[in-house]
């Protein structure tokens, strides 16, 4: 009993579904779709992709319909034992299906080369914003050399319109292993390698928040090395820069009058996914000011523990480079490169046990008491 060959009807239905899906992807608001470009590199790559997809679709339809036809037309009929005529080759046919693919390749290559050179070798305009991106296991360091600003995990860029272009030219390197910077709507990815500086640029054309993540396996928490890019209006961007430039000492003066902080652990409803059960909201205040859960005591604990070995807070003695700069921690919407929302509850849980959020991340649990964790949290909450 011979079976029917693969029929063409499921194939047609499937192709239609594929095209419909592609169209959906292109217009959907899915945040990391490569079919929703918002910068020049991304749009150039997107247009090229349509060109390539069209050629591929034509080739596929052509070849597969010939295949289907051959399978149907030349299937063996029952009760026919004779052999068909033996054909060993044909020079003309073989030449044609050598020449035509060569021509298709030439067209494809030229189309690719045009975009490749125009994006990769684009000259840098004087109005460009310089950003240095340094990859770490498992977080992102961002430096703005023109402004003397160091930030982490959340990148702010000014919008770049045709009337006021302000592309961001980025230099990328790594402090440890190979990473890759990928925010699909703002362009293709570029790898970050230690001992090597790569370059890429983007000119985001619409304000908003764009997301992405590390795209080169870099260790246990590769999956949680997320990226956020805030594209601001020029005014908002300048405001953010100014905020980042404020030294912590200025902030400290503003806080000098504060004696205590509201309860750090209980006000936030958002619970981290793997919250250890141990950190119930600590008692509000004890009578002893040196034991109070407030920012001043928190700063003392922070500076006495090993925190300062890894973290920097401008204006204090903390200037470690191994972990993210915390000077403006509260200006960020997420913690731990996107692993959790930046809320007081999450912050305290994170300090108590980072591996509850990111098992395998390089920040150790310091095994401090709940009170100390609350104090540190209170201090960090002032780092706006």
């Amino acid at each position, binding site marked *: 009993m011979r079976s029917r060959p693969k029929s063409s009807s499921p194939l047609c239905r499937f192709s239609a579904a594929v095209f419909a899906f592609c169209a959906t992807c292109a217009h959907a608001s899915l945040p990391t779709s490569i079919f929703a470009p918002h910068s020049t590199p991304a749009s150039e790559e997107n247009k090229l992709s349509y060109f390539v997809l069209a050629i591929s679709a034509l080739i596929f339809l052509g070849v597969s319909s010939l295949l289907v036809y051959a399978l149907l037309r030349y299937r063996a009929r029952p009760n026919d034992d004779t052999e068909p*005529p033996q054909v060993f080759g044909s020079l003309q046919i073989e030449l044609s299906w050598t020449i035509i693919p060569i021509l298709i390749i030439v067209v494809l290559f030229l189309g690719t080369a045009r975009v490749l050179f125009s994006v990769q070798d684009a000259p840098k305009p004087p109005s460009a914003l310089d950003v240095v991106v340094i990859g770490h296991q498992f977080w992102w360091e961002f430096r703005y050399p023109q402004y003397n600003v160091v930030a982490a995990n959340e990148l702010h860029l000014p919008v770049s319109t045709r009337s006021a272009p302000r592309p961001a030219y980025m230099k990328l390197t790594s402090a440890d*292993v190979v990473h890759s910077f990928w925010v699909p709507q703002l362009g*293709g990815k570029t790898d970050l390698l230690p001992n090597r500086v790569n370059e890429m640029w983007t000119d985001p054309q619409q304000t908003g928040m764009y997301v992405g993540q590390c795209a*080169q396996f870099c260790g246990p928490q590769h999956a949680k090395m997320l990226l956020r890019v805030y594209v601001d209006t020029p005014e908002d961007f300048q405001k953010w820069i100014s905020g980042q430039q404020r030294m912590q000492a200025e902030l400290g003066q503003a806080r000098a009058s504060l004696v205590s902080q509201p309860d750090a652990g209980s006000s936030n409803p958002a619970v981290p996914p793997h919250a250890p059960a141990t950190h119930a909201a600590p008692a509000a205040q004890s009578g002893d000011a040196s034991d109070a859960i407030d920012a001043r005591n928190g700063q003392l604990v922070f500076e006495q523990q090993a925190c300062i070995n890894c973290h920097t807070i401008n204006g204090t003695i903390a200037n470690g480079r191994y972990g993210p700069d915390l000077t403006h921690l509260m200006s960020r919407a997420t913690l731990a490169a996107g692993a959790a929302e930046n809320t007081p509850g999450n912050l305290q849980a994170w300090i108590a046990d980072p591996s509850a959020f990111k098992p395998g991340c390089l920040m150790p649990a310091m095994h401090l008491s709940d009170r100390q964790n609350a104090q540190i949290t209170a201090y960090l909450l002032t780092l706006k």
Partner: protein
Amino acid sequence: MDGQSMPAAQGIEGALDRTPAHSARGTYLEVVHSWIVTVDHKKLGILYIAYALVFLLVAGVEAMLIRIQLIRPHNDFVSPFTFNRLFTMHGTTMVFLVGMPILFGFGNYLVPLMIGARDMAFPRLNAFSFWIAAFGGLLLYYSFIGGVGLAGTGSAPDVAWFAYAPLTEKAFSPGHTVDYWAVALLASGIGSIGTAINILATVFCMRCKGMTLLRIPLLPWLYATTSFLVLVAVSPLTACQAMLLIDRYLGGHFFDTQAGGSAILWAHFFWIFGHPEVYVLVLPAFAFANEIIPVFSRKAIFGYPAMVAASVGIGFISLGVWAHHMFTIGLTSFGNAFFTLSTMLVSIPTGIKTFNWLATLWGGKIRFETPMLFSVAFLFQWVIAGLTGIMLSVSAWNWQLHNSYFVVAHFHYVLVGAIVFMIFAALYYWYPKMTGRMLDERLGKWHFWLMVIGFHMTFDFMHFPGLLGMPRQIYTYEPDRGWNTLNFIVSIGGFIQAIAILIFVYNLVHSYFRGEEAGPDPWDAWTLEWATSSPPPSYNFATDPQVASRRPLWDLKHPEDPDSAFE
């Protein structure tokens, strides 16, 4: 089999060897011993294939665990450490412990038979190659229990199958995971190089009388090309692993970026191995297609000389495309352009082969037994895989697609959709020769259709998360990116494929005992292996064959219309 499919075979029994393949079998221990000490290419071939099938199941389980973890976002079925081990081991196992061995197994079995030789050129080297490759595989899996890793959970490699430096340096991987990876693959690599040397010496030096190089079947041609690629490509991997071990244990600085070392050098060296490696895996699949499609179309392969030239051409061009795995690593635009062009060029000879297969079908009388079903699916899937490969070769678009699930979908389309499907076709086609029994056709069709449905469900849909920005090698993903339903469908397809494969394993075992007797030539084919009994005697041919064309059995069966009149 219905008798009407093989009328021509009946007239030539007198010319075929009907000697029973084995005499008194001896005790159980003697049988096992004979398999352990064998240098017979047929037994070694079967050992390779059995070894590979065992690891296929193991790596398949690893894949299922991966898909269960990814079936929904923020899943906690396995820890990140376990997940990283799973995908590393799944990839490493499938390439080195399934793909290479099963293809060498078929090569071992078929090449001497097809060229009318008594055995491979160096039977003892053959045995040594198998056992050292097997040792490598066992060493790799011993890592699961062999010692304390970074998080105290065993030392199976967890650095991805391409083990980028400097993640693999002692500073970032202080446990032993990388060491197991490097040493186990070093051992397997020695086995591969030994087999490659053997195949080349056999094909060039042991052909029977009259079998010029342009008369050997296409399978030995493709295996010779594959072997050449193994020589030139596996050696760089051996060099890489030696450098890595020097760094890890002798204080070397090859990839120590603090001392001026370079991460990009590892990438270059690895992919100089890695790209030809995938051609090492796919060329044997082409070899099977070259043998099976003509027989089931009842026509000679269309354009034999072009097929030879295209196959050898693919081998050579594949040595010059490796940096298409590195378009995002920061090469110059000229470098990116060069590798774009070289990669696109490889599609020319590949296209020639595909069109030649189409032309072989054209005008034939196609029969759809299970080997042909898998070959037909291979043809469609190969075209799609090749097209997504072209998409990936467009370097400017590759900057979006690289390291996303689009790449994972593409290479699984090649590895599963083309290679595994052709391996299944080859097993259905040559199992009768190896065991003397036919595999069950009904079970074969169940296997086929479930594989097709499961394969497409998983790997067609897998392209879309990539297009929507999902990177690979992540143990979980964010729920607001639009990847959830797609991952769910992908995982379900995996289960369907698992069922298909279980049916196949049952078929393999059941048919060994209860399958229909095959006879020497159940498919009415034309190459020399079908001129022996099933299974063949240990000496293959009682007297050396002599041939005058590419299809000696066609000449025998059709004395009025022999190929030798046309060649």
